[in-house]
């Protein structure tokens, strides 16, 4: 593997291994996991879960905590439930790494493609939000057509992915005892990219 870059075949292998490793834990945590293939045989991975309120992450939500009764406010929307968020992991032939495509669909079927609104719902760390907003040409979350579905999605600009993967996860086994093979590649990638958009992996055993 030409780490951190992947060929499409290597990406397919990474997806298979990732799903084998994480599917039960993800499904136990309430996420849906789906491997999809487009009409030209190109594979991509879909993770879907309900949008939880940020307050609910740290504890149960009490009705009296909701101060505004504006039914269109993000808080109200989250509590009302029915909204779900989709994370699509799609291989990019240009950047030769996976790219994360995201969209939020509310309970009324409205597709939310507003970076700020989505980050409001799912990005907990304010430092991350600031860093994302500081990326040139509109921030780290772009809008574009999903490469396989051809419909609008948000996506995390992939130009820094390779650098991040190289810097954070050492590929040299001898030096640090940590290596990233196809079995851990997607988990590593998701840990780096996911925090920006509320995607976190459940912990699983090492074996």
């Amino acid at each position, binding site marked *: 593997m030409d780490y951190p870059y992947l060929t499409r075949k290597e990406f397919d292998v990474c997806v298979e291994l990732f799903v084998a490793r994480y599917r039960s834990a993800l499904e136990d945590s309430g996420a849906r996991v789906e491997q999809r293939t487009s009409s030209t045989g190109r594979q991509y991975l879909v993770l879907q879960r309900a949008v939880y309120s940020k307050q609910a992450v740290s504890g149960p939500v009490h009705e009296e905590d909701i101060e505004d009764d504006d039914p269109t406010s993000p808080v109200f929307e989250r509590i009302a439930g029915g909204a779900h968020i989709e994370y699509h992991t799609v291989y990019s032939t*240009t950047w030769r790494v996976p790219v994360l495509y995201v969209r939020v669909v509310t309970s009324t079927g409205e597709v939310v493609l507003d970076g700020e609104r989505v980050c409001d719902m799912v990005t907990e760390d304010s430092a991350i939000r600031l860093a994302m907003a500081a990326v040139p040409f509109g921030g780290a979350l772009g809008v574009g057509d999903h490469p396989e579905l051809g419909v609008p999605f948000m996506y995390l600009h992939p130009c820094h992915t390779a650098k991040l993967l190289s810097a954070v996860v050492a590929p040299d086994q001898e030096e640090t005892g940590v290596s990233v093979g196809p079995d851990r590649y997607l988990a590593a990638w998701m840990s780096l990219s996911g925090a920006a958009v509320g995607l976190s992996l459940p912990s699983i055993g090492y074996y």
Partner: protein
Amino acid sequence: MDYREAEQRAPLKRVWKGMIPIELQLAASDAIELLASAVLPEPFQTFYMLIPRVGYLPFISPKIKERWLDPMLALARSDQEIKESDIWFEYKGQALKWHYPIGLLYDMLVTDIHKGDAELPWSLTLHVRKLPTAKVIAQPHGQLMRDMFMAMIKEADFTRNGSTKRVMDLAKSDQMQLLDGLESHTYEKYFAIHSILIPPSTFADTRAPVSSSSTASSAQKNRAAMVPKAIPVRFYMQTAGSLDDGAAKDAPTGATASTTGASSGNTGAAKQADITQFHVSQVPIPLYREGSTSELATLADAFKLCYGITDQTNDAFVTNCVCISHGVCVPWESPISWLAEHFFYADCFLHMVVISV
């Protein structure tokens, strides 16, 4: 500029100057909401405009609003408001993807271009309400268009050079000039900055292979350093079925025909193209054929690379399909290097529409 450079730039200038005349009518439902009548006051019933093929619809909307919609509302003393980001376009029932170059949309959706019999002016319906957000990216305003355009420029830079350094190193004023040149469709403004991103004549002789015996070795080294790693190319292939959410089953008609030898899908009279039926594929295309340093890769080679056609003798798609770009049928044997120099769109990509004939 000497005559050689002028001659070399000639196709590029023609591409840049390509225009499409459009004929706009306001959607009846919007007319009723804005003016309490489905019939617009004279002379606002139809609006004509020449728009650049290499341009984008969100950059045209402000002019349409200024010259047509605002005066119309004023005449009718309507107190309704229209924002530029509310404006979207429809062609024969289909919402146009405003982030696609205008010329690309025309080449995809208008039939019989390759027969020289295409619809002109291009008759579109303008909407100012209820943008279909599931199909079309919401809020088509200028800043979002600029951001999306720069994302494409970055991707093109990465494909050509292996990094986005050239784009990211552009001075703010140069970035602004590039965008300004694009929005105002001014050749000189745009190309002054484009030449920084992609220095002209990086590929010295785009018609014949580079001779190994020509020139001093240092000049050769310089040329090699400026030769792009790969060219960003997107194919838009018309398919028989529609791409459904996770349920796409139909293979592209061209590729099907090429692999089975049997023709399927559109034959005879041209069916109205559906924008959702186009399969978009993108692969960085090297300048030379695999394993060669002298054989230039052709458009046909690029197509095979993109669609994973490994059988080098499988050329059925060459007979069954045409490739259209900038309103021109591009021969399948065209070298990618020549196309990369002369036939790119403003975002530095080659956008190639493939339809069955």
